[in-house]
């Protein structure tokens, strides 16, 4: 396998709604930021791949328009996944492994604000038996939280503590949408939003995105002093059938973690995409991380959740910490599908 690294990360300042800009206008400055970090341009890029969802834009082929933000004329080598940007990064990593590219621009984004996001997310459920009931994403996550509580794996107070810790950590993240949290006791006094989830257990609705640049070997070293090398990356999927799954575990996280080699060294930092508070424990346990690992120092998806970008942001947050020397080895995680059904794990490492 070729050595491939993340060498540039650029995020938007995530907000609840960005009505004054369309998707192109939102995405273009993010991509420009990724280039600016390196003094690079589209002509330095061999392959471009993005992740987004038409259902969030509210129109078929929405990604076609956002290509205008890239600078695709003269024509470029480009692809798109209807998945989180983390999977776009995976496609770019595979492309570089084939030897057909040495560099890649990857981006993921969404404007969730125009629609009713929890109800929109229900459209990805089984179309025959579940979707007609319109169970929103908060209610579906509530089923999982209830299973966690009843199996004794977590308490409502522990869930509130995750939310509190995440949003307090987000005070140090200039891109975060929610910074700071009321004390845990105060959080627990709030009414349920979707029993047993309270508002603090849920991610915000976010407009925003992220762009990342990948490079192989010496190309990466020529751009930055300390590239964040991808030492392992893998993704796996579990069954969709909520009634047949043990919702308190995520086998696909554990499998992807084993394939990516999470346990092959000490983990300094982990950024996991756990949009609901109770999900952090499921993911961290499946990754096999100990208590000494710093989890979601950015605040995670509880502080900003631009769907289709939030997974790639996790990889970017880990890469940023390796590039700036505050971590030597870290794990980025992305999820998709209801109740952590599909998962990607990426191990990133600095050298020297």
């Amino acid at each position: 396998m070729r050595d491939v690294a993340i060498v540039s990360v650029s995020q938007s300042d995530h907000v609840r709604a960005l009505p004054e800009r369309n998707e192109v206008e939102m995405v273009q400055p993010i991509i420009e930021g990724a280039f600016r970090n390196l003094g690079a341009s589209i002509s330095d890029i061999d392959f471009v791949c993005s992740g987004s969802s038409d259902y969030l834009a509210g129109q078929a082929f929405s990604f076609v328009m956002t290509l205008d933000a890239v600078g695709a004329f003269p024509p470029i080598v480009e692809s798109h996944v209807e998945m989180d940007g983390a999977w776009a990064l995976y496609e770019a990593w595979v492309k570089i492994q084939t030897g057909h590219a040495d560099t890649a621009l990857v981006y993921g984004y969404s404007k969730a604000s125009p629609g009713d996001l929890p109800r929109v997310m229900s459209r990805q459920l089984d179309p025959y038996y579940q979707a007609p009931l319109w169970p929103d994403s908060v209610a579906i996550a509530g089923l999982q939280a209830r299973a966690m509580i009843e199996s004794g794996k977590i308490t409502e107070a522990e869930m509130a503590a995750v939310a509190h810790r995440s949003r307090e950590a987000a005070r140090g993240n200039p891109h975060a949408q929610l910074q700071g949290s009321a004390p845990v006791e105060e959080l627990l006094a709030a009414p349920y939003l979707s029993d047993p989830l309270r508002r603090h257990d849920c991610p915000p609705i976010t407009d925003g995105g992220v762009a990342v640049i990948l490079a192989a070997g010496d190309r990466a070293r020529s751009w930055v002093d300390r590239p964040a090398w991808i030492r392992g990356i893998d993704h796996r999927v579990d069954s969709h059938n909520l009634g047949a799954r043990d919702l308190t575990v995520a086998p696909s996280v554990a499998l992807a973690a084993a394939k990516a080699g999470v346990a092959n060294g000490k983990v300094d930092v982990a950024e996991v995409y756990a949009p609901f508070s109770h999900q952090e424990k499921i993911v961290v346990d499946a990754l096999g991380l100990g208590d000494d690992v710093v989890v979601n120092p950015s605040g995670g998806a509880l502080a900003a959740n631009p769907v289709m970008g939030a997974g790639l942001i996790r990889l970017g947050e880990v890469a940023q910490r390796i590039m700036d020397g505050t971590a030597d080895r870290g794990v980025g995680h992305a999820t998709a599908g209801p109740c952590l059904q599909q998962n990607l794990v990426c191990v990133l490492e600095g050298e020297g």
Partner: protein
Amino acid sequence: MANRVGVIGIGQTQYSAVRGDVSLPGLIREAVFRALEDAHLTMDDIDAVVIGKAPDFFEGMMMPEPYLAEALGAVGKPLFRVHTAGSVGGSTAIVAASHVEAGVHERVLTIGWQQQSVSEAMWALSFPIPFQQQLVAGAGGYFAPFIREYMRRSNAPEDIGILVALKDRLNALKNPYAHLHEPDITYDSVKESFMLWEPIRYSETCPSSDGAIAMVLASESAAEASAASTGVRPAWIHGTAMRSEPATANGRDQVSPDAGKLCAADVYRQAGITNPREQVDVIEMYVPFSWYEPMWLENLGFAPEGDGWRLTEAGVTQLDGDLPVNCSGGVLSTNPIGASGMIRFGEAAMQVRGTAGDHQVDGARTAVGHAYGGAAQFFAMWVVGADKP
């Protein structure tokens, strides 16, 4: 790096306007099981699944892949979804091939599908304000002006489109899976069919189909093992290429887009093709409206600019011609949009494997699969051969 990749299994569904006899997972599994059977494999032998389709709004399902995980035998495996507009079937096959080429996996199952009967593609493709100026004319209304411009530039006779439509629909009679089987079709019946988007007549337009295609792609050793079992040679991938350009850009030529020319040049370079007209035996190209056959013949370098229609008129692109195009009946006879590109790639592979049945071109050794999408701005191509690259 750059490991050899072979196509060792191809399976297609019966295509039709409405496949009301199967559920969505049932439709896709029809293609998957045929592909696995073709390769003498089972789902257990598959390392990863790469699936593609066009817009989720066509079926009213947001990112349906997680729902399909069990039906695809993907639980516990990587499951990957590609979406690059109308070229997606081709792009998906290329992404799947790259997993094997990179050495990440040994055997990858790739699928393209669409269930267009659930919605109305015409309106799903007519974008509303505020996204862009409202056309409310579907894909045909969008492409008709560029066809007229091609006719003006090339001075092509007005009936070239009729000849293409007649040829493809007659070819479809030799393809048992094709959606449209019109045994009574004639030059006059195409000519007399009503005008939809001048100059595109009803019979010069692709149908709206339900259907799926699946392929198994394998590493060199896995492909040879499969071939030893099935007795059918793999279709070896000699090159893959994708190019994209914006829908609108100053200086962009929508009649013969740069992205298509660059895509063709890239894939020919990889395959060692210096004279495509001489070295390619058969082409499956994405022709949703009849006139796109001569237009793409020029764009892809099979004819000089302005001369593509001469190949069509002289019968060169017929099944028994010197450069057969769309022997399967093409998109003009079958169009589940998300599958259509992969059907082109799969039919090209069938030709060099010698498994195309009644629409087989004798002695086909090198074939081109082509797909395009969006506002003629996304291109995907592969070259497959009977011999190892």
